[in-house]
């Protein structure tokens, strides 16, 4: 490294220049695209943690390595964050000077015309004969400005030097909105990033499974899972109450093939109490139709069945009676779950499947259709320690580490198949299990996101900026009128014998309409009739002055 002359400041400046250069931004963009791809290949903890656990179990060798590389948390991994933060810095470094330049350009006059207009990408030249139909230079000067201003050009006029006689240059520029759009788009992208961060820090999301007929109070302990943002206090959750009164669900029965049994309607009737002590309100909640309560939104996302199970001991005393939500495992709602009877001695655990339309064959119990056509509950029975070591465990899975299967009189593990209303007796005087009925449950998501509206506003602004940036053309037009030196006078009242009008235009990128624009401008400037018919008011003024 031969950089002794640079020094610390020099290096810092060099790094900053590199980072904010277009090439680096481009490289970072491509990197960002590539870095996002693993997030679609492997399951993500932020999206579905259960899938990640399953993947790790199925791939004991590869899984941990992928985990170390952050492949299951791509979008919060240091490398992904690094790329987009560098990109954001690069963006700031690009946008700030560009904004400054653009503001200066908007205030400045259009630049003066280059010496040789015929070298510009579009150029058209006319020589006016000295007959009565042609115009004086004074009129041309006015006409050129009017024509260009009407087309929303910013116009500056400069008299040619004394050696050019009575000639003059008109410089005009339009399409400043292109650069405005560019700046707006990039600033709005920064706005999106900031808004997302706000939502992440102060937002929260809770999930709860609620069987029909039950009540729910929004509080940290009541949610099945709660993901509060880092800066959310546990007491800051909206303290509303909600009761699930009714659920309507229907499935496809007409179409055959893969569509058969596909869900067709989910909706729920709920009663909410927005604040403790407020009047209850009833509302309808459906997929695509969330409910807004107390600054939070409630979404209906999942549904399933909760068998209502009652377990009695041998004397008939009720040990357990509740609606137990089972989790659907496939599109036909073959659902699994567990009933944990902590009141029994020893503790009793029922584990198995609920089938809304049962089919029991060599593959075991499965469901043929998602609706309740022939509901059955197929369970096995375990006894022992329900909560070994007191560790947290899922309510939907029976942890059999401290349990033994209950054997029937033949010495086989007990299996029971219950239809609603049916009661089965447990072996050796352990009591009875009754399937009282089946209710549906709703999977509710409650979300509070203060960044939501700012994200929407920023992204719509970005889109507007983008359309301006890509849609507006920035053009510079120059008009040069050179009078005949011999006949020219400066008052503009004398007719000239040979006035040359040159119109030329310049753009940054390719512009197929440029040549025709230049020709049209030249025609408009030199022909009096067309201007009058197209625009009456300036024409009236011109007549007054001429």
């Amino acid at each position, binding site marked *: 490294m031969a950089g002794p002359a640079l020094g610390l400041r020099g290096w810092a400046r060099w790094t900053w220049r590199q980072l904010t250069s277009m090439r680096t931004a481009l490289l970072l963009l491509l990197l960002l695209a590539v870095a996002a791809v693993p*997030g679609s290949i492997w399951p993500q903890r932020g999206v579905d943690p259960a899938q990640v656990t399953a993947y790790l179990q199925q791939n004991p060798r590869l899984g941990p390595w992928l985990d170390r590389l952050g492949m299951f948390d791509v979008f919060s991994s240091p490398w992904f964050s690094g790329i987009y933060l560098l990109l954001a810095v690069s963006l700031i470094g690009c946008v700030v000077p560009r904004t400054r330049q653009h503001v200066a350009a908007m205030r400045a006059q259009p630049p003066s015309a280059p010496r040789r207009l015929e070298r510009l990408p579009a150029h058209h030249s006319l020589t006016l004969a000295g007959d009565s139909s042609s115009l004086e230079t004074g009129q041309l000067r006015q006409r050129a400005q009017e024509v260009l201003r009407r087309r929303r050009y910013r116009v500056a006029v400069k008299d040619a030097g004394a050696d050019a006689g009575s000639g003059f240059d008109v410089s005009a520029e339009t399409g400043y909105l292109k650069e405005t759009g560019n700046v707006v788009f990039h600033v709005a992208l920064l706005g999106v990033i900031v808004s997302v961060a706000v939502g992440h820090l102060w937002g929260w999301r809770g999930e709860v499974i609620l069987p029909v007929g039950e009540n729910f109070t929004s509080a940290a302990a009541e949610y099945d899972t709660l993901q509060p943002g880092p800066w959310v206090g546990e007491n800051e959750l909206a303290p509303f109450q909600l009761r699930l009164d009714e659920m309507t669900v229907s499935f496809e029965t007409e179409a055959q093939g893969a569509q058969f049994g*596909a869900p067709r309607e989910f909706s729920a009737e709920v009663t909410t109490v927005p604040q403790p002590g407020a009047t209850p309100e009833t509302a309808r909640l459906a*997929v695509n139709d969330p409910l807004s309560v107390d600054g939070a939104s409630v979404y209906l996302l999942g549904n399933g069945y909760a068998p209502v199970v009652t377990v009695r001991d041998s004397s008939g005393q009720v040990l357990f009676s509740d609606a137990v939500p089972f989790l659907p495992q496939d599109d036909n709602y073959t659902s699994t779950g567990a009933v944990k009877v902590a009141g029994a001695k020893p503790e009793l655990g029922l584990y198995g499947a609920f089938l809304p339309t049962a089919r029991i064959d060599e593959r075991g119990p499965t469901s043929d259709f998602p609706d309740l056509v022939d509901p059955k509950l197929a369970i096995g029975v375990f006894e022992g320690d329900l909560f070994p070591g007191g560790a947290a465990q899922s309510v939907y899975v029976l942890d059999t580490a401290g349990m033994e299967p209950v054997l029937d009189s033949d010495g086989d593990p007990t299996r029971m198949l219950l239809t609603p209303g049916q009661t089965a007796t447990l072996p050796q005087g352990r009591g009875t299990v009754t399937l009282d009925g089946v209710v549906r449950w709703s999977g509710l998501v409650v979300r509070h996101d203060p960044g939501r509206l700012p994200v929407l506003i920023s992204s719509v602004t970005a889109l507007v900026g983008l359309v301006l940036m890509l849609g507006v053309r920035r053009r510079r037009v120059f008009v040069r009128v050179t009078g005949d030196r011999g006949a020219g006078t400066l008052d503009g009242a004398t007719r000239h014998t040979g006035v040359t009008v040159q119109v030329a235009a310049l753009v940054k990128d390719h512009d*197929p309409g440029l040549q025709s624009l230049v020709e049209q401008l030249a025609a408009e400037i030199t022909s009096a009739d067309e201007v009058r018919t197209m625009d009456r008011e300036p024409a009236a003024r011109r007549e007054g002055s001429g």
Partner: protein
Amino acid sequence: MRNDTLAVASDIGVWVTIVLLAVAMLAFAAHLAVHAAAARPSSSVRPAETALAGRGSAPPAPSSPGTDRDRPRSPGSNGEGEVTEQAPSRRWGVVGLQVTLLATLVLVASTALRGLSVQRAPLGNMYEFALVACCFALVIYCGWSLRRDRLWLGLFVTGPVLLILGLARRAWYTEASQLLPSLESIWLVIHVSMATLAVGLCLIGFATATLYLLRDTAESRAAGPTGGGEVTGWRRALPPAESLERMTYGIHVVAFPLWTFTLIVGATWAEQAWGRYWGWDPKEVWTFVIFVVYAAYLHARATAGWTTRKATWIAIAGGICIVINYAVVNVFFSGLHSYSGL
């Protein structure tokens, strides 16, 4: 709920379209072959002019309105020169365009029938999405062809569309039925129709990008020491590389804001349906990837030190990402966008 007659009519229409497109494709291929085989024009003609040779000297075909308007408004400004003698026949290309016009009508009608058969917008599953994207691609191509001479592009639009329709029928076909509750929203129509329109445009942009690279290679070879100074073979039928490149850019300049719009509308809908506007679902990941790749293309084109060839490769990568987003993500990655019905 479902009108079976209309559903069957729609299916038949799609088969008819496939047959028509196959015919159009052959005609367009013949168009290129005629150009490749045509006798070389006199040596005074520059490559830029041979490319569009035949525009006016061939007998004006009554079936291709716009041949008159077709001439560049300002000769010389974009390198498209005047007509030369000995121009190869345009007959096959015109036949191809006529058949494509017919195929487009039939496909649009079939897609509409599909929607009518279940009384909803035909945007509910992968099969319908493919139909609508093909409709957009064909309508855009036909509209363009009626205003400008785009016969050389025909093969590269009808070919991919034919492939997509064939796959849609064989691999992605789903019986007409009602929507999943999560799809029953006005946002479906806005989100998916914009996405398909953007995809249709990108399909054509992908074709012009590829053709630009091919033509550019041919031009540099022709200009090289071993080349004869003129592009030979079927690539003679193409416009000059420079103008192909501009078309590619122009198409993407329209497609990119549409894709951005799709993304914003999708996020708005996700907020309503799933309780969050962005959740890195596989489909969202790929929508984002496509957005970033096309953004990179637009940047690359304005970056000093990046050749237009290199920039165009990024546009091609974007096209590949769209294909992955549609054909791979929907089928092989599980996520919330699992609407494919497969």
